[in-house]
């Protein structure tokens, strides 16, 4: 799950999931939600792309993943689904995109501000600040 946390200038998301893989998925869906995507009706065309990133910190993997999706948003593509695989130092995702009609909030980047992925009570949690 994710929820938006008040931030004066930017957008902050709190994400909480049962696994790291789900956290990455939820963060991606959170990003699509706050972007205010308005899909093209009757458009079933899917664009499939494989994404891979290697880094020795899960926080870097998360920010890179979100920044990849922000880059795709600039190309008028939004994520509808993804199959994610995470190892200790890599992220692999099969991504399914669709073209959108309109986006209501343009996000510049996911930031490292106070970023920490923590495990607490069997849940994986993080706060992500996005620059607008």
């Amino acid at each position, binding site marked *: 799950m994710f929820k938006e946390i*008040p*931030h004066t200038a930017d957008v902050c998301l709190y994400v909480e999931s049962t696994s790291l893989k789900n956290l990455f998925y939820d963060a991606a869906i959170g990003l699509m939600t706050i972007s205010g995507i308005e899909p093209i009706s009757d458009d079933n065309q899917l664009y499939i792309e494989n994404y891979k990133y290697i880094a020795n910190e899960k*926080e870097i993997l998360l920010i890179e993943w979100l920044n990849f999706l922000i880059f795709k948003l600039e190309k008028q593509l939004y994520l509808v689904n993804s199959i994610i695989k995470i190892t200790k130092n890599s992220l692999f995702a099969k991504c399914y995109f669709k073209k959108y009609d309109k*986006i*209501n909030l343009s996000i510049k980047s996911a930031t*490292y501000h106070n970023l920490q992925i923590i495990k607490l009570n069997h849940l994986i949690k993080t706060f992500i600040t996005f620059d607008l």
Partner: protein
Amino acid sequence: MEINKIDEFIYEIPQDAFNKMRVPARFYADPKQLDLIAKDESLKQLVNVATLPGIVSYSIAMPDIHQGYGFPIGGVAAFDADEGIISPGGVGYDINCGVRLNTTNWKKEEVTKFLPEIVNEIYRSVPLGTGKGSLIKVSKKEFEELVTEGIDWAIKKGYATELDKENVEDRGTLPVRDLLGVSERAFERGITEIGSLGSGNHFIEIGYVAEIFEPEIAESLGLFKNQIVVWIHTGSRGYGHQICSDFAREYQSVAKKYQIELVDRGLACAPFNSKEGQQYYNAMNSAANFAFVNRQLIAHQIKNVFLNYTKKIKPLKFDLLYDLAHNIAKVETHNISGKKRKLVVHRKGATRSFPSKLLKGKFSDLGQPVLVPGSMGTSSYVLIASENAVQLSFGSSCHGAGRILSRTQAKKEINAKDLKEKLERRGIIVKTPSISALSEEAPEAYKDVETVVNVVNNLKIAKPVAKIKPLAVIKG
């Protein structure tokens, strides 16, 4: 947090407020706005900046300070060029986000009748919003020239004149030794967004000079009452965002390599003189050059729209008053305790404000113009740099009103359609691709710009020359 009042409008958080601080933190504010400033995380972020290596004198914030990521918005921090650092988080994702003010010889009463059509034409001809393309197409080689040469490139291609160049901060070109730190994705994003406004708080505003406070200076700047002027607020678009993202990631490990302790990952940095520090510096400067050209191209496009109305109105004179950066790190020489020192001055949501003695060329007798746009629908200000900016803020001033409401809160409290109608009832035309985003930029979401300007005026950081009121806003 302990906050001491040092003087009227000057507040200090002492160095012992947090054991990792290397210098105290200072902020300039109106007492009426203290509660607003203390409401969010901005002062904590200001304190965090004071922990970075090589910081000189104080971690400083302007009266429009508000919460950012890593460094606060409205922050100024100077680091010793030999011992200190450079930080992408101290510049921001939108490198050289900035503002320019173009003046015309048209008067409000001559233009009002045609304004709705003019605004529609600008709205149609300038790319706005996310991924909406560029005004011009260039090859990768030309793009590399553009980001290396800045305004000189625009002159070469006929989009700017030598006169424009004189009126751009640092004459529109920051030094770029190489582009080794620029990723392919940054090039890909930049090449498709040249001459585009973007979204968020970026805007084009047509306004008129409503009040003049300093007639002689106003005349020197070419300002007169009821004159039609154009504001453009945008930056380096995806090109700058990508450069910041790339280095914010790289510097996570670079900071460790140089044993720099970070109290927030958003402060990630590298020694300025290191290989990594220089790579970011060059890449950042190239993004700054992109932004100077970006604003120039948009102005050129607006001028072309205006030219279609010369028969209906009168022959057009369209000049640049000034174009400045408010997200940048610059190498500058400042006098610290009687000694000249080379510093890397980070301004994140702060405007350079150099009085005449620090300038060469066009503004060396007057001082640098400081442009302070207000929030949507409110007045904006043209100021001129004053003497005290040098000692109080490394030659820096405020950059706007400063947010007080989060975007979520603004959306909850302000109805976008009502706001648009309210502005239109006041005679202000509003055009935007996303009506729902309007409420985020409502005047209620920002501090009172007049109070902010008053602080810098009282501290003699910059002096108001003219007040400009809006007639039409095109929001990205």
